[in-house]
């Protein structure tokens, strides 16, 4: 087994996994901070409850993002040491800045927020959650600067065989980063919006199913109460869920619009910067203007270097040109046109350089795995669009104040939470797999930086054996699988407990000893 393949699987698995937690952290963090602000300003009980409940779920998820993020930072050096040596001068900077300027803020202020509920003045406490949640956004920016440099290297020259940063401003204002950042942040808010929507729907449905809330002849909600047996489902509880549902749906809708526009800007850049990725997204062999709705044929480019068997079954004329260049006539280059161009510019075989190890002299396949790029691109758009459509429908359904007493709709709302997650994962898999065979894609836009690129085959650690890589792949994958189950079980349990799971004082039926100054408001 080639260590390169294992290292790639490991990077893919750990990154996709890490990015299940990250968007929820980013989106939910800002929403929790906004809810606490609403409580601070209005003093309404429902906002406090929302802050506490969504804050609890936020923390359960946050820690998994932290834990799996460290793996990312270490793995460049561990498994990709040649890559780290080649790009460290420019790629290390945003990572170090992320730790120093964002991650420190995130971790420190989140600790203050969790334990500071009664220790800090209210305004200071509120400022802590804003610092922590905005730091997650800043964090995303730095990481996306690093990733965008791999997609579109700028501000860099090759000196003594290494990529050396010559213009930090260019690196940090890379046009690829500036469109990827909003795309990713909107994608994160789409996740958080669907999360609020699905869970709030579930609770409203349960209130209806238990007969607490009913509807009158006009279909308007009649809110009831059930405060027996320590189950606090009062009128404020209703407000918590209906407000969360509407907030989630609006956030999901607005995010989708943002995702669509920024995605369009990304496609235009991709058309210029990585034409082969664009062609592979379409499984387009020949130049054309149409967006493929369905193409069939042997998409598996496993070893294949042409794509002549692929037949477009149905395509929308002009749409691809619009995505790429905002008109309906621009010919978007297909694989068969691009392949000779790439071969001429970057060679047909890996150079006979020791950095390629045993892979030196191998033929280069410039074609990404097209079944992945083609379907990844479509899965991203489909799941993202479905989630937005569902959010619009949900807003309409709850216009009279509650959800229908229909179980399958409630289940659909809960399953719908997964759609934006799937869209995010598919999008990243597409964009990273579409960059292959390069780990740093060549930048065709400017003269002079044309030579800054690196083949993935050259990036892997030469000193690390397949056995070591396999050990870490198996160990990390199994631990990740177990922890995913643990996280999901915990999320289910805390969702099932409702607001009371985050505010146990709500479930106290007796008047008890009350608040004790000496006891911590929160403790692990």
């Amino acid at each position: 087994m080639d260590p390169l393949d294992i290292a790639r699987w490991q990077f893919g698995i750990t990154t996709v996994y890490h990015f299940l937690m990250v968007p929820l952290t980013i989106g939910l963090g800002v929403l929790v901070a906004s809810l606490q602000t609403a409580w601070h300003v209005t003093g309404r009980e429902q906002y406090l409850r929302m802050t506490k409940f969504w804050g609890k779920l936020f923390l359960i998820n946050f820690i998994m993002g932290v834990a799996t993020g460290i793996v990312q930072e270490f793995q460049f050096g561990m498994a990709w040491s040649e890559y780290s040596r080649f790009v460290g001068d420019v790629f290390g900077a945003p990572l170090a800045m992320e730790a120093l300027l964002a991650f420190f803020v995130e971790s420190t202020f989140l600790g203050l927020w969790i334990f500071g509920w009664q220790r800090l003045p209210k305004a200071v406490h509120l400022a802590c959650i804003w610092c922590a949640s905005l730091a997650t956004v800043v964090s995303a920016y730095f990481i996306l600067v690093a990733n965008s440099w791999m997609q579109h290297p700028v501000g860099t020259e090759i000196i003594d065989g290494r990529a050396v940063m010559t213009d930090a401003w260019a690196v940090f204002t890379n046009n690829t980063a500036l469109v990827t950042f909003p795309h990713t942040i909107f994608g994160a808010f789409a996740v958080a919006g669907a999360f609020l929507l699905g869970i709030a729907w579930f609770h409203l449905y349960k209130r209806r199913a238990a007969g607490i809330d009913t509807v009158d002849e006009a279909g308007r909600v009649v809110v009831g109460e059930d405060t027996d047996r320590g189950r606090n489902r009062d009128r404020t509880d209703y407000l918590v869920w209906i407000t969360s549902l509407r907030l989630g749906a609006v956030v999901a809708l607005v995010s989708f619009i943002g995702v669509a526009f920024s995605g369009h800007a990304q496609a235009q850049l991709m058309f210029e910067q990585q034409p082969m990725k664009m062609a592979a997204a379409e499984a387009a062999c020949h130049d054309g203007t149409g967006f493929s709705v369905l193409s069939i044929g042997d998409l598996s480019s496993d070893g294949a270097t042409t794509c002549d068997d692929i037949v477009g079954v149905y395509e929308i004329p002009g749409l691809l040109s619009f995505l790429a260049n905002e008109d309906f006539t621009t010919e978007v280059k297909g694989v068969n046109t691009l392949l000779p161009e790439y071969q001429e510019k970057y060679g047909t075989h890996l150079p006979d350089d020791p950095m390629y190890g045993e892979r030196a002299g191998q033929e280069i396949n410039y074609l990404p795995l097209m079944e992945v790029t083609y379907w990844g691109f479509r899965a991203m758009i489909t799941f993202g669009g479905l989630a937005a459509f569902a959010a619009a429908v949900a807003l309409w359904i709850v216009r009279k104040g509650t959800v229908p007493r229909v179980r399958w709709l409630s289940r659909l709302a809960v399953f719908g939470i997964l759609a934006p997650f799937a869209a995010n994962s598919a999008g990243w898999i597409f964009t990273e797999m579409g960059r292959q065979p390069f780990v740093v894609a060549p930048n065709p836009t400017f003269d002079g930086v044309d030579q800054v690129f690196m083949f993935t085959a050259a990036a892997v650690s030469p000193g690390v054996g397949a056995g070591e890589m396999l050990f870490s792949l198996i160990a990390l994958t199994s631990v990740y699988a177990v922890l995913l189950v643990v996280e999901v079980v915990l999320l289910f349990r805390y969702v099932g407990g409702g607001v009371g799971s985050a505010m146990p004082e709500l479930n106290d039926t007796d008047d008890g000893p009350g608040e004790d100054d000496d006891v911590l408001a929160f403790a692990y």
Partner: protein
Amino acid sequence: MDFLPTLWFVIIAVLWAGYLFLEGFDLGVGMLLGPFARREKQRRLLINTVGPVWDGNEVWLITAAGATFAAFPHWYASLFAAMYVPLVVVLLALIFRAVAFEYRGKAETAAARRLWTIALSGGSLVIAFGVGVLLAVTTTGLPLNANGDRVGGPFAWLTWPAVLGGLAVVGFCLAQALAFLALKTDGDVRVRSARLLARWFPVLLAPLVAWVAVVVAGSPRTGAVAALAVAAAAAAAAWAFAARRAEGRAFLSLGVFLLASVAALFTAAYPVVLPSTIDPAFDLTVANASSSAYTLQVMSIVAAFGLPLVLGYQAWTYWVFRRRMTEDHIPDAHAVTRIV
């Protein structure tokens, strides 16, 4: 002398010192969870003494690694690839420990709680040992070839200095944690940790002293010897304070001991950042492993702004949570009541 690479060598030393100083006690508190705490409330007391700060402390490690990547890519790449297997184990420990902090209190059964205790406690031990090994091989060397790649298989790093370094950090973390608990708690935990610290002090700190002495003996330049002398004096003072139950001064002296030890290690190692045990010609040094002057300039500006800020708000955090804690402060655990 190249000014910027040397400056970044110092900054990385500062980051490691900051990491060991701060996470030192929270790793130690984690390790003590099993053997030291007598009952569940006491275990939770221990966890909560570091609850608000452990995550912020851990970022020092992430920043140390990130800064090494940015300022010395060859050092980062060679060290991390050579230490592949131990780092995988450390990563798993970091994952389990972090998750245990958040999830332990949410466990519903005693058995699940015990598993999380093991994850937190064992994770802390593995991290401390692993970080010690990583730093030890940084000072004593690895079998690296001309390209900086490890030869000799996945366990080529396993030498007695590596093990000594691992023990050194474990011992220091335990001492630091006992000093911290004596300072941070009241009641049974305070009394016992102060007593344990005074009794076990020499045993806990001997490996670190031995490691520093070995490294300084190999490169006895004035600065390193002076730092070693300061470290020894601070250790003696810390022991005396610990014996007299002067908790604050014992903790601070231990801190000075650590900072002086790290200073001695890095001063002795300079200008080599990662020695090759195969051929000194293959040594990675501040000159041949560093990033370009331009990148280091950019990073210096960022660090000059960022590092004081971090120190400021982290110090404020410790001030906010400065109160001594007892078992009485720990609220009763409550299970989640399902309402649907």
